[in-house]
């Protein structure tokens, strides 16, 4: 949960200020705890909700402040533009996703299962938070060059998880990998995920897990072994 950062702890059952009562959980796809009485976070949540309704281009600052239940002045205390608010939202969501993926990955004993757990964590996050999924995988692409650049580096940031797969492989296997193997794998995976989200098929994302695991592990383990890991359990 994004609100679990050290500076804004929010416990279950905390008495929320009246403004917060206007944002029932689930309407914007964000858990209540996320929508802390921290204004910046509420603006980010408001942006996610506004974009889910209107798309990036159609979202105005008025939409954002209405969903966040804050004043226009408050918006400008935190951000100078919609784009800037979007970048903050994007960074926040991606940090959360990276944390979940990293944690899931680290909990496994062997690399193939770590990859499987990492991809599962990513898909699980996107399914659980559909408006955030749209925000970071789809709307990010239409939000201008600054955000596209971040989308780019977010994708690149997953490359190391796959590169680790080279460790301990035979010279034969290594010889078949190229400098861009990991990029192509991650790019292909992200491209498939974002196209499902664009098509409104976010709920199906978790069903992609076996395919994605098999696809990404194959260059390192061979198809038979990759398929085994992908289809088990």
């Amino acid at each position, binding site marked *: 949960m994004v609100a679990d950062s050290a500076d804004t702890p929010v416990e279950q059952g905390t008495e929320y200020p009246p403004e917060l009562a206007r944002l029932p959980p689930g309407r914007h796809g964000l858990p209540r705890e996320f929508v802390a009485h921290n204004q910046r976070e509420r603006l980010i949540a408001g942006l996610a909700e506004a974009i889910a309704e209107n*798309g990036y*281009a159609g979202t105005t600052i008025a939409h954002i402040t209405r969903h966040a239940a804050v004043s226009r002045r408050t918006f400008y205390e935190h951000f100078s533009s919609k784009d800037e608010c979007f970048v903050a939202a994007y960074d926040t969501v991606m940090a959360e996703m990276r944390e979940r993926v990293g944690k899931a990955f680290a909990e496994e004993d062997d690399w193939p299962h770590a990859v499987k757990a990492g991809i599962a964590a990513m898909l699980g996050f996107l399914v659980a938070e559909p408006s955030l999924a749209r925000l970071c995988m*789809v709307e990010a*692409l*239409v*939000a*201008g*060059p600054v955000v*596209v650049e971040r989308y*780019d580096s977010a*994708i690149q940031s997953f490359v190391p998880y796959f590169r680790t797969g080279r460790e301990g492989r035979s010279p*034969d*296997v290594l*010889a*078949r*990998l*190229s*400098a*861009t*193997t990991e*990029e*192509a*794998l*991650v*790019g*292909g*995976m*992200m*491209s*498939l995920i974002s*196209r499902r989200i*664009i*098509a409104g098929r976010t709920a199906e994302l978790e069903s*992609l897990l*076996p*395919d*994605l695991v*098999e*696809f990404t592990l*194959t*260059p390192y383990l*061979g*198809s038979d072994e990759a*398929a085994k890991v*992908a289809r088990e359990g």
Partner: protein
Amino acid sequence: MESTCDQGTLTFVADNASTMRPPPGRHQLSKAFIAQHQRARIIAALAEETADKGYRAVIVADIVRRAGIARNTFYENFSSKEACFLAAAEFAATEALRRVVDAASKVDSWPARVDAGISAFLHYVASEPALARTCIVEALSAGPASVERYERSIQAFVPLFRMGRTVSRHGDKLPGTLEETIVGGIFWITYQGIIMGQTAQIEERAPELVEFALTPYLGGEAAKRIASKQD
């Protein structure tokens, strides 16, 4: 390889942009000829402007100036910047697919077809850098219709790869989304090459992309062997 007199080629149009303007007065060229080339010239101008400034910053005045036409002429051909952009995407997608299919049909085996198709695709990207930038990079920022077009372009290449199931020992046990993922990966690597300013060298990526595409069907060893015949 392709004739520079091919009427569909933007290169031809762009190279000859200023000389293509028919002389004022009596036209010996047919209206249809002029119209077709005007449209292509406007598209070429949009691509150049988009590659320079990014889609959001381009205004119709920029396109008009670059194409050397009257504003009216723009609006006779397209209702808006977005409509022009979609036409450019449509043109490029159709042409890319045509070239890929054309190259693939000249060889017999499936792996050779993948090899020929990927090479033809990258060659097109390298030979039309502004158009490639417009349709592969900027397309994602140009609104929902454009994103949907991009999506359809990816789907259009799926059948070329799907044929691999008939020659793979895995057959239809291969993941259902495999082809989409492969095409998505190829587009992603191409996208990366363009944004890093390496469009001119993109054809050098062909062997690794061919290997990437063939590996799930034929195994890494066979894929590498086939892909490195490029050199």
